Each structure stands twice: as structure tokens, then as C-alpha cells.
């Protein structure tokens, strides 16, 4: 069994055909980890990508921020903050990989990203943007399995349909691993920071997350909420079981949960419109 898994790992991680992140993101990541780098340096790198520059300027000028006419990338980066810019760069390239033919999964991921952001803000957690990005990426393993093992993916879907079990269980049967682990491998090969790769790898098993358990718990919970609301389609027809450890880590209670459901549902109306807009582009 172990052979099959490592063989699969090799196929999945074959770097020649793995979708790559634009080099802009890697450069941004390494610059932002270095405390000596300046906003101007980062702005220069961002300016080399005209699509990303346009997105950042559009965001900085959007009425939800309420700044007055931002015209340079470095001003936009100062106003928005480096983390927001990094998340934007990452999520817009993920969208390009994901959108191809799986609208349901894209909507699910987008929903989880939005819900993770809401939960993080509600609980007053630091690094909300990162948590939202982790939420957006949590099912990236499913995309990779679909791209790399389309045959196995069909078998998985068949098993899920015939026996009414979770995608995760079917994945273990067919390919001896699961989308969370595959997502973990991918995030390693993309050199994503631990605060993103841990929530991706352990969103179905929060207890195993050691360094970023809070973030992992938020993503797990966001996944549960979005599945419960039936928004998008992750491939699973059933709500995952809420893990006690995630509940305790976030110190949730019934009152908070009810408020979160209200806020998430309210936000999903907008997300639905946004996703329809993106699809029609």
C-alpha cells in the first residue's frame, strides 16, 4: 500500500506538469520575510505583473476602503498593507488554476475563504487575511487530484455516489491518500509558509496541527459552516463532523455560532453575486 502512495506522490508532484505559482508570489514572499526590504522594492516587483497591478489599484480605489484616488502601486501597498497584497496575488493565481471546469468547488472554496475571514474577525484573531487565504486554498488538493489523476478521480466520485460516503474516505480507498495530504505536498512544493500549509493539510484533523492550530481550527469550522449552508459544491453531500478540539480551541459557544451563521449567510448573498460575475467574464 505504501508503494502505491509514494508512487502517487511522485506522479502528483511531478514538477514539470504541476501548476506553478507566478514567480511574483515567490519574490514577494521572500521580500516580505526580510525586514530590510522596502515597500518600494516590493512595488517594483508587483509592477512587473500588469494584471496584478491592475487588481491592486482597483482594490485600493474601491469604495469599500474609501481612500481617495490611489494611483501608484507603492501607495496602494502602503494603504492596503503587504499582507492584503500577498493574499490578493495568491488568490488571483489560484483562481486561474481552479476556475477551469469546477465551478462548484470554486464557489465552495470562495465561501470557506469568506467564512474563515468572518470567523477570524469575529474572534479578534490576528492575521485575518492569511486565515482567509488558507480557507480559499483548503481544497486545493482536490484540484490537483483532478488534474493529475483524472481516472482515479472518476473512481472516487463513483464510490462517493454509490456508497454515500465522504470524499475523504473514498480517496483513501482509491488512492490511499486524501486531498488534504495532497494539498499539503503541493503547498510544500510551492514553498507556502506554515501558516497556510498547516490549515490546508489538517483541516480534517485539527488535532495534528501543532504550530497553527487556531488557524487550522478556523478553516475547519469555515468548511463545516459552508457545507452546512449548502453553498457551492465541494463534492461532499454531507456536513463534516465538528471536531471538539476545534470548538475548544476557538472557545466558541452557541450564541457566537448563531451570530456567525447569520453573518456568513448574509455575506454569501454577495459572494454568490461575485461568483456569477466572475463566471460571466
Amino acid at each position: 500500500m505504501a508503494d502505491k502512495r509514494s508512487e502517487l506522490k511522485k506522479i502528483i508532484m511531478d514538477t514539470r506538469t504541476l501548476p506553478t505559482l507566478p514567480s511574483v508570489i515567490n519574490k514577494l514572499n521572500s521580500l516580505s520575510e526580510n525586514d530590510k526590504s522596502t515597500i518600494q522594492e516590493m512595488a517594483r516587483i508587483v509592477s512587473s505583473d500588469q494584471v496584478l497591478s491592475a487588481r491592486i489599484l482597483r482594490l485600493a480605489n474601491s469604495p469599500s476602503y474609501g481612500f481617495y484616488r490611489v494611483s501608484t502601486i507603492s501607495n496602494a501597498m502602503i494603504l492596503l498593507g503587504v499582507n492584503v497584497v500577498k493574499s490578493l496575488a495568491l488568490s488571483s493565481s489560484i483562481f486561474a488554476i481552479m476556475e477551469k471546469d469546477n465551478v462548484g468547488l470554486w464557489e465552495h472554496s470562495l465561501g470557506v475563504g469568506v467564512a474563515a475571514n468572518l470567523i477570524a474577525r469575529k474572534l479578534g484573531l490576528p492575521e485575518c487575511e492569511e486565515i482567509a487565504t488558507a480557507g480559499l486554498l483548503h481544497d486545493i488538493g482536490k484540484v490537483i487530484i483532478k488534474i493529475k489523476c483524472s481516472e482515479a478521480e472518476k473512481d472516487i466520485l463513483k464510490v462517493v455516489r454509490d456508497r454515500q460516503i465522504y470524499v475523504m474516505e473514498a480517496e483513501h480507498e482509491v488512492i490511499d491518500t486524501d486531498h488534504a495530504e495532497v494539498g499539503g505536498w503541493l503547498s510544500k512544493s510551492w514553498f507556502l509558509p506554515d501558516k497556510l500549509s498547516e490549515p490546508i493539510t489538517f483541516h480534517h484533523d485539527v488535532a495534528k496541527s501543532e504550530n497553527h492550530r487556531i488557524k487550522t481550527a478556523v478553516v475547519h469550522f469555515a468548511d463545516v459552516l459552508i457545507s452546512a449552508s449548502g453553498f457551492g459544491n465541494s463534492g461532499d453531500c454531507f456536513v463534516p463532523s465538528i471536531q471538539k478540539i476545534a470548538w475548544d480551541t476557538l472557545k466558541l459557544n452557541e450564541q457566537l455560532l448563531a451570530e456567525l451563521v447569520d453573518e456568513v449567510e448574509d455575506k454569501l448573498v454577495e459572494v454568490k453575486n461575485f461568483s456569477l460575475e466572475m463566471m460571466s467574464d
Partner: protein
Amino acid sequence: MQKIPLMLAKAGMILARDVFRGNAPIGMPICGKGTELTETLIARFENMDVQTVHVEGHPVWEEGERSFDDLLRELDGRFCKTLQNPLNVMLYDIYKAYLIKSMGGDSGRQAE
């Protein structure tokens, strides 16, 4: 809460979100949420290029839209595997209450 075209708005409905000029969420709201719509107000919105409004409850039923019973059945289906977990039961109850609230209570249209 339901988003409806202004054409279908009727006096007596309650706004669930602020209304902005020209339908874009820019600038100052021209009418706050919680306001009860009147014929005059709707006519004014028309003049100000408002195309859609969010109203409380679920007053307008369109062809092919799922009824409250359908939504509840789907919710039951989604939760059927995990109701032995007390936390999931809590979430289920909250969602059910939310559905009832957002569909304007049991007085909404039932399945034929």
C-alpha cells in the same frame, strides 16, 4: 432576506439592506434598512435608478424556486450523517431556525 427587482417591490415590505443611488454601494445610502416601503418611496427609487432591493423575509416566489420544505429536506440530508455529534446538532438547530427566519416563518409558501 431576499433580493428582488424593484418592479416586484410592494408597499409594506421592509428593507433588509440600505438602498443606494444607481444600485451601486457608493456614497450615502438614500434609504436605511428597516424602512417600510411605500408607493411614493418605490417611485422615488425608480427615479434614482435603483434596480434591486433587499427585503426582509421571502415575499416573492419565482417559478422553479425551492420551497421551504425542499430547503429543510436538503438541510436534513446534509446533516443526516453527523447528528450523533452534539455540536453538529447545535449547528443543525441554528440553521433550521435561520431558514425559518429567512423564509419569513412557516407562513411562507409550502410545497404543493
